[in-house]
């Protein structure tokens, strides 16, 4: 094959490749575009055919209704508070555990680590029943506190694994040098280990925050009080059960508001997403 025909073939393949990739990407993105379009469509036009990807009579009414009548701002704040506090506590506690595993040899280290491993392998939904009974006994039902405690619990094992990996990669010599200078373990952890593990902390923070922000099953189980609803619960209630009475425009207006922070976080911290995935412990 001559150089020029090979190059022509390369260009041909490249074009086919891009067409296939773009078609696939369109399939990925089309449902979102449709959702945004519906969120600007007056409710009476929602199921018209042919479907309108650009609404003919665009309206902000769905957003106004979601914001005023449906109390979405309150649920937004609930979700934000729960996700922020859970993430902060989880990352703190798991980074402490990760530091112990990465920098110390002590009796029981293996056993404790294996117990955490079991926690990783038991899927969250399977613990719903006993955790519900536990939460009932200690009075954590129907409260944001009940969400925080179990969100932290559910993310501890994963974050510990993730952060242990990052902490083990940081050089032990620095830790030993600080030790000789008389720094105690807490100082070494706080002043040295944590700053060195910043990329790991960022990854753990982002994944934990998004998991808490989106969590549904546990909130569905323990939250009845309208004041303690989180966004996923509120959006699900907007969509009701049957198809006919649902105001899809409002549902998707609320959905867009719930999804935008996630997309922003993802776009800004893309690098950490890839890092977290590749470290092999995270399923988004």
């Amino acid at each position, binding site marked *: 094959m001559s150089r020029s025909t090979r190059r022509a073939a390369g260009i041909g393949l490249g074009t086919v490749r891009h067409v296939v990739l773009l078609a696939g990407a369109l399939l990925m993105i089309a*449902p979102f575009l449709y959702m945004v379009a519906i969120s600007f469509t007056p409710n009476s036009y929602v199921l018209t055919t042919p479907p309108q990807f650009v609404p003919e009579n665009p309206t902000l009414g769905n957003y106004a209704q979601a914001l005023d009548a449906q109390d979405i701002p309150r649920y937004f704040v609930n979700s934000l508070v729960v996700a922020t506090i859970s993430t902060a506590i989880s990352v703190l506690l798991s980074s402490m555990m990760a530091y112990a595993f990465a920098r110390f040899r002590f009796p029981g280290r293996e056993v*404790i680590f294996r117990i955490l491993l079991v*926690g990783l*392998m038991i899927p969250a*939904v399977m613990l719903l029943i*006993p955790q519900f009974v536990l939460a009932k006994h200690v009075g954590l039902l129907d409260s944001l506190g009940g969400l925080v405690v179990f969100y932290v619990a559910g993310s501890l*094992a994963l974050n510990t694994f993730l952060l242990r990996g990052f902490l083990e990669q940081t050089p032990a010599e620095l830790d030993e040098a600080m030790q000789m200078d008389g720094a105690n373990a807490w100082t070494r*952890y706080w002043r040295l280990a944590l700053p060195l593990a910043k990329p790991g902390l960022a990854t753990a923070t982002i994944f934990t925050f998004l998991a808490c922000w989106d969590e549904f099953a546990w909130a569905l189980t323990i939250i009845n009080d309208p004041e303690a609803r989180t966004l996923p619960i509120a959006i699900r209630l907007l969509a009701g059960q049957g198809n006919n009475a649902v105001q899809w425009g409002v549902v998707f207006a609320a959905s867009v508001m719930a999804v935008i922070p996630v997309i922003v976080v*993802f776009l800004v911290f893309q690098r950490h997403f890839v890092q977290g995935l590749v470290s092999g412990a995270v399923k988004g």
Partner: protein
Amino acid sequence: MTISSLQARAAADAVAPGPRPRTRRRRFPATPYLFLLPGFVLFAVTVVYPITQAVQMSLYDWRIIGGATSEFLGLANYARALGDDHFWLSFGNTVFYLIATIPPQIVLGLVVALLLHARSPIRPFLRVLYYLPVVTSWVVVSLLFRFLFADQGLINWTLGTTGVTGGDTSWLADRWSGMLAISALGVWKGVGWSMMIFLAALQGVPQSLMEAATVDGANRWQRFRAVTLPAIRAAMAFVTVMLVIGAFNVFISVYLMTGGGPAGRTDVLLTYMYRLAFGDLEFGYGSAIAVILTLVVLVLSLAQLRLFRDRDGVTP
């Protein structure tokens, strides 16, 4: 460790230029435990204890209402599951979801990763688009797909106008079409994840081997079979195991798209378990199903890991 050996160590330290970290740590054996304490206590109470509780509750006719006594049943709840038609229907639907979602996610994820692997100016942009469904909340996309698969929804309209079907399928009103719609969501949301793992794995394919194969006259397919596939085997194992675990855990999409309906025909194991526990207050029987599900997942995961390991001696 005896006292004399401690003394010997201390003496050695006195002679050695500066203390060695190991001996330093021995003097404060409490330190690592103090770091572990808060996290591990919380973990023990809220995760480990409930695991044991799940097993215990599955042996009882468990009463959640205060004052009522729970009756010990032994393995009766497990026997009940084995003879429960609806348990098997839910199990069948879970297996359907597994088969309908995992191969497409692996194949499509790998194809997209291979296409995206080569350099391209729009590669970062495309990667974001494919990954977007992965980061979006299950609740939002489940409702979105319920809307898309509605009788007058976008899917029916598209199929109707292109003449593939009459455009009048009631997707969510029948067992198999409902499971198909739920599986479509699973594939759409998951492809980006497997793509990302494969993309990372492709970075590790040895370029020298690739060039050697090309020199030897191997075509694209032969290079893929002989060089690429073996090099990404560990990633393949990881993706498969995680997808199997994920498929057995399918819950939100079913709960929100069909609610297990019509009449429980699209129930999967977890929606059935959920309704038993929090609808019918059958906590003991629900726990038994949860335990069975956990055991199935554990056994399958271990079997897959062993399978992948045996084939090429590589631990994923």
